[in-house]
């Protein structure tokens, strides 16, 4: 049975060879016909072999086969099955294999779903994808082989970090990587198009579904990560502008810009060079994220502690691929014919502005993440960039971008009537302002600036929601005297439009949640003994008793609390725990959440302390208003992306039908 691991390692070698062959065939065949066509077979064979290798790694984790170094280091026989499986991507080596698996499967999908694309473009894209595959599989195989074996088999493993033993985190890396690596397809198509020297509207149409797919997965992945950070790390927040979080946010921003510029390119044949540039940029940021997280450059709760040598290898891959891509772009972009012209007031202009503002915001995140690293490396100065910087630089730029959204969706292509659009949106804006004013009526901030921020934030959130609803009303030609007809027309609204509506409404929902949570959040930290109580706002939390519980692979000590609202009614009995994991000798605090439809009451216990009066526990108690919206909004956005993807006009395979017809 243990030989199966050798088969896995062998499949990994095969996957490397197939990827290399895939690239070599395309180069030898000069990118079209003949020998280059073998690249298709190689892409399929490579995907099959790496899927087998990955399956065997998962199997080794399920079987707790400690002869595999990676299983020994990150697993334990006591772990529940789900965390045994998710342990397969809980380490640097395993997650690299996951990355490569997704990369090669995307390569196979280019072959399977791209048969109707022009052969030259398809084969060249496959060649680039093969090169990327060879680089990453080679890196995994030669520097971080997850299937490496131990000569003497230990009896027990060292177990996975308890903080990672969590359902949200089990699915966070796969979704995130589906997003990151999905950008590789766009990168390959961009390079292929630049080599071909042909870029037209059709290219944007082929690429857009891939961007949508990757973007939706990335959105879900980041949301899961934020949710995990929120309820597992016990600090009451969901986003810390931590460098590793930023590393996942940068590709998302680039993909969001790309999603919008690709629409302009598809509809109006404009912004070609810019769209291709963004296509290269999105995957570059994905690779940069992988490099930052794995190079040991960053210290973060999410980073893998990895030696610098692997970091140098990853940096080399990053520089070669991204450098090659951008050099090619510099050579070829000036030759791209500028496309359709448009007037100053048009949807194109608003989308260009959207791209400009997102790029500026992206630049803020990029600088904020890299500046401390560069200052340290170049001038040996330590410094920090954190939330206050992003709130000052990133947020105002994004507010400008978000205010544009409803304007853009109501404008016509080529030339729009600004006055008409403003007239149609006036009511929506008025409602948004009224709702925001009502919402901030009872808010007293520390400073006038804080109150202004709150009001503006609410206006932006409501404006996104109501403005988008107004766009939907326009799409069904809503009239007060014909409500029924308009409602019937809703069924005829294309899925892509529904996707746009959901994504923008989701964004508004998220903004509302982030603004309210950010400004109205309350918290208190106090050493509590049994019988103590603490007040927060109108809520009262009483520490009633202690309890013991043993879980699958941990022993928990917890407190039973009683939470009363302002009228003295008991809302819930939170039971935060402190779990001791004997396998790794680590303690993990488990948060207790009291769900209300919108708000969370959040209780977490820290280690006990001996005081004169007896044992006390440091208890942190948070009131997080509207926090539900922060996680619900992005899910709506991802659902919007998925709906757009299902639109008949955008489906991955649609090109085939279009070509036949």
């Amino acid at each position: 049975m243990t030989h199966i691991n050798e088969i896995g390692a062998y499949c990994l070698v095969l996957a490397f060879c197939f990827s290399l062959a895939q690239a070599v065939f395309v180069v030898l065949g000069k990118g079209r016909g003949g020998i280059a066509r073998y690249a298709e077979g190689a892409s399929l064979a490579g995907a099959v072999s790496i899927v087998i290798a990955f399956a065997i790694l998962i199997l080794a984790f399920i079987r707790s086969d400690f002869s595999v170094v990676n299983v020994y280091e990150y697993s334990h026989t006591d772990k529940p099955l789900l965390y045994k499986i998710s342990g397969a991507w809980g380490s640097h080596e395993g997650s690299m294999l996951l990355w490569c698996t997704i990369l090669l499967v995307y390569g196979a999908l280019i072959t399977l779903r791209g048969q109707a694309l022009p052969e030259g473009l398809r084969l060249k894209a496959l060649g680039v994808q093969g090169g990327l595959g060879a680089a990453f599989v080679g890196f995994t195989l030669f520097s971080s082989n997850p299937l490496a074996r131990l000569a003497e088999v230990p009896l027990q493993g060292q177990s996975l970090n308890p903080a990672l033993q969590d359902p949200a985190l089990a699915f966070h890396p796969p979704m995130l990587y589906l997003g990151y690596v999905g950008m590789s397809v766009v990168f390959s198509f961009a390079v292929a198009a630049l080599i071909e020297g042909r870029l037209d509207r059709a290219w944007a149409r082929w690429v857009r579904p891939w961007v949508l797919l990757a973007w939706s997965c990335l959105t879900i992945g980041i949301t899961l990560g934020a949710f995990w950070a929120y309820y597992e790390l016990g600090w009451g927040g969901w986003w810390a502008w931590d460098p590793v979080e930023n590393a996942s946010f940068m590709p998302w921003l680039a993909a969001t810009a790309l999603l919008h510029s690709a629409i302009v390119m598809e509809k109006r044949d404009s912004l070609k060079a810019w769209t291709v540039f963004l296509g290269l940029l999105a995957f570059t940021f994905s690779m940069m994220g992988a490099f930052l997280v794995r190079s040991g450059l960053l210290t973060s709760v999410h980073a893998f502690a990895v030696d610098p040598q692997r970091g140098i290898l990853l940096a080399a891959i990053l520089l070669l691929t991204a450098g090659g891509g951008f050099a090619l772009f510099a050579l070829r972009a000036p030759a791209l014919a500028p496309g359709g012209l448009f007037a100053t007031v048009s949807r194109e202009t608003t989308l260009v502005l959207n791209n400009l503002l997102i790029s500026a915001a992206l630049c803020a995140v990029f600088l904020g993440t890299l500046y401390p690293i560069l200052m340290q490396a170049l001038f040996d100065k330590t410094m920090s960039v954190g939330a206050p910087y992003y709130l000052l630089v990133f947020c105002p730029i994004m507010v400008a971008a978000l205010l544009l959204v409803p304007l853009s969706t109501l404008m016509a292509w080529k030339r729009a009537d600004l006055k008409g659009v403003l007239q149609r949106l006036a009511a929506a804006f008025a409602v948004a302002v009224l709702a925001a004013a009502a919402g901030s009526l009872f808010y007293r901030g520390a400073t006038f600036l804080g109150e202004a921020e709150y009001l503006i934030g609410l206006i932006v959130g409501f404006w996104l929601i109501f403005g988008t609803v107004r766009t939907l009303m326009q799409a069904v030609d809503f009239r007060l005297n014909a409500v029924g007809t308009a409602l019937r027309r809703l069924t005829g609204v294309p899925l892509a439009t529904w996707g746009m509506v959901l994504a923008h409404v989701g964004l508004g929902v998220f903004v509302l949640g982030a603004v309210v949570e950010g400004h109205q959040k309350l918290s208190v930290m106090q050493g509590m003994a049994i019988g103590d109580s603490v007040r927060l706002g109108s809520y009262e939390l009483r520490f009633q008793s202690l309890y013991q519980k043993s879980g699958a692979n941990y022993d928990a000590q917890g407190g039973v609390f009683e939470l009363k609202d302002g009228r003295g009614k008991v809302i819930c009995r939170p039971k935060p725990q402190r779990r001791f994991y004997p396998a790794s000798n680590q303690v993990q605090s488990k948060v207790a959440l009291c769900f209300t439809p919108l708000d969370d009451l959040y209780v977490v216990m820290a280690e006990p302390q001996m005081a004169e009066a007896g044992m006390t526990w440091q208890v942190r108690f948070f009131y997080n208003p509207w926090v539900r919206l922060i996680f619900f909004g992005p899910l709506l956005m991802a659902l919007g992306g998925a709906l757009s993807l299902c639109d008949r006009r955008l489906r991955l395979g649609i090109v085939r039908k279009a070509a036949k017809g």
Partner: protein
Amino acid sequence: MKRLLSRTFPLVGSGPLVGSGARKSIAFASHGTMRGGGGLETGPPPSRRKSVAPPPPQAGEYKVLLLICLLLPCHAFAATPREEARARQLFTEVRCVQCQSESIADSDARIAGDMRREIRADIADGKSDAQIRKALLAHYGDYVLFRPRFSLSNLLLWLTPPLIALAGGGWLWATRRKSVESDVCALSAEEEKKLHDLLKKRD
């Protein structure tokens, strides 16, 4: 005197600001009662910053200070809501120097608690935010502030993003006229005339 102190300070401590009370109590009595009934921070006594620590009070000063303490109403040490809000705002800007990219507002590490207590005390002492930031910078260096200083070496960090937005906007504005000319008013006067002539011929 000790009895007096221990009667005074638990009262102070029962307000929402044990921090300043606790800190003051060490300044006067080396082992006075420090744990109030239930305040925000109930950790061990704070490790004090060396650079800002005042010299140990002389015997004469004790009496003066005690007098001042007794004259002041107890709530003088309790933070007003505005001061508390200021403190919380500052907490988000200050990095917990021993944690992994966490602000002292988020961290439950012991040193974060000490730093919070010091900042609360500084605010109660009437220091402005700028003074507190400066003192932190002097003691811990640039690393401690999550909001980097607006200095020459940080100019790129602060100005590049807004400049990109502005320069891009300016560029769009500048190229706007061209596209309008070539797109909309594409006909020159000569062409207009030709068209006019052609139309006339048709008639």
